[in-house]
C-alpha cells in the first residue's frame, strides 16, 4: 500500500482539481477515481467574494485528503509564505512545493526548491517537491528532509508522457525506499501505466483528466491504468529479447516429412 509521510493510502492516483468544465464534473471524477490526494491552491480573494469558500465546501464534501500547492511561486520567499498560509487554511502539514524557474517550460528552479524544502521541513511541513528527474537534485532534496520525490516526466500540461524513462528508472534504482510520484507531463493512461511499470509509487495528474471529453470516464481509465501498471511491476516484467523465442514447446512436435 502507498505510504506517504507515515500515512497509508489505498490509491496510487493523485488528482488535480483545476480546469474541469464544472465543479460537479470535478466532484464526479473524484468520486469515480477515488484518488488518495487531491491538489488544491490558494489565490487572492476579491472583497466580499465567496468563491474560495464555495470551492472549499465542495472539496471538503468529497472526503479526500488534500495536498495544497505553491503553484505559480517563483521565489523561495513566495513559496514558503504560500505554504504557511495554506497550512492555516487547510489544516495540513502537507505541501506540494513548486518553485518555478522558467515561465515557458514551467521547469522547477531546483536550487530554490532545495532551499525552500529545507526551510519548510524545519517548520514541520511534509514537503512533496515538484522536481526534475535529476538524480543529484533528488539527493539534495532528501538531504533537506523530503521523504517523497515528485519528478516531472514532461513539462506541466504538455501531455507528452515520459520523455526520459532511463532517468526515471535510475531514480527508482537509486532510491528503492523513497516514494516516487511522477508529477506532470502525463497525457494518456498508457503513460501512467508505463511509469508505474518502472516501479514508481504513484502518479499525480490533472490536465489529462480535466480536459478529456468525459473527465469522469478518463479519471476511471487512469485509475485502472495505474492499478495495472503497479500490478505488472509487482508481478515482474519480462525483459525484451533480441531474438524470437517460441512460446509453444518444440519438444514432441510431429514430423511429417
Amino acid at each position: 500500500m502507498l505510504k506517504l509521510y507515515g500515512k497509508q493510502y489505498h490509491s496510487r492516483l493523485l488528482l488535480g482539481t483545476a480546469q474541469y468544465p464544472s465543479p460537479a464534473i470535478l466532484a464526479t471524477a473524484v468520486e469515480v477515481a477515488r484518488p488518495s490526494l487531491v491538489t488544491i491552491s490558494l489565490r487572492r480573494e476579491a472583497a466580499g467574494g465567496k468563491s474560495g469558500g464555495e470551492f472549499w465546501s465542495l472539496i471538503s464534501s468529497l472526503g479526500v485528503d488534500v495536498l495544497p500547492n505553491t503553484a505559480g511561486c517563483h521565489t523561495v520567499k513566495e513559496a514558503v509564505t504560500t505554504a504557511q498560509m495554506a497550512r492555516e487554511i487547510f489544516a495540513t502539514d502537507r505541501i506540494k512545493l513548486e518553485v518555478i524557474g522558467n515561465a515557458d517550460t514551467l521547469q522547477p528552479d531546483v536550487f530554490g526548491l532545495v532551499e525552500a524544502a529545507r526551510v519548510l521541513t524545519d517548520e514541520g511541513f511534509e514537503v512533496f517537491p515538484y522536481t526534475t528527474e535529476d538524480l543529484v537534485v533528488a539527493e539534495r532534496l532528501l538531504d533537506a528532509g523530503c521523504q517523497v520525490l515528485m519528478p516531472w516526466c514532461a513539462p506541466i500540461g504538455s501531455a507528452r508522457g515520459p520523455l526520459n524513462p532511463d532517468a526515471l528508472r535510475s531514480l527508482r534504482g537509486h532510491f528503492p525506499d523513497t516514494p516516487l510520484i511522477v508529477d506532470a507531463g502525463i497525457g494518456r493512461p498508457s503513460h501512467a501505466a508505463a511509469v508505474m511499470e518502472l516501479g514508481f509509487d504513484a502518479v499525480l495528474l490533472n490536465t489529462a483528466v480535466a480536459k478529456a471529453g468525459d473527465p469522469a470516464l478518463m479519471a476511471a481509465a487512469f485509475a485502472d491504468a495505474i492499478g495495472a501498471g503497479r500490478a505488472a511491476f509487482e508481478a515482474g516484467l519480462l525483459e525484451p529479447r533480441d531474438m524470437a523465442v517460441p512460446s509453444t514447446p518444440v519438444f514432441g512436435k510431429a514430423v511429417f516429412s
Partner: protein
Amino acid sequence: MQITVNGERHEVAAKTLAGLLGELDYEGAWLATARNGEVVHREAREQCPIEDGDRIEILSPMQGG
C-alpha cells in the same frame, strides 16, 4: 490611510487587520492573510496593526494541479 490589498490601492480607516477584513466585507474561516510579506495567523489579526503603505494579501482556496 492608503494601503494595497491584493495588489489594489485602497483608502481605509481600519486600524487592525481584523478591522480591515470587516471594512472590506471579507468573511469566512477559509481566508489566509499576510502583511508586508509575512503571514498573519487568524488569531493574530485583532492585534495586527494596519499602517499607511501596508501591503496586505488575502487568499482563499482555489482549484490547483
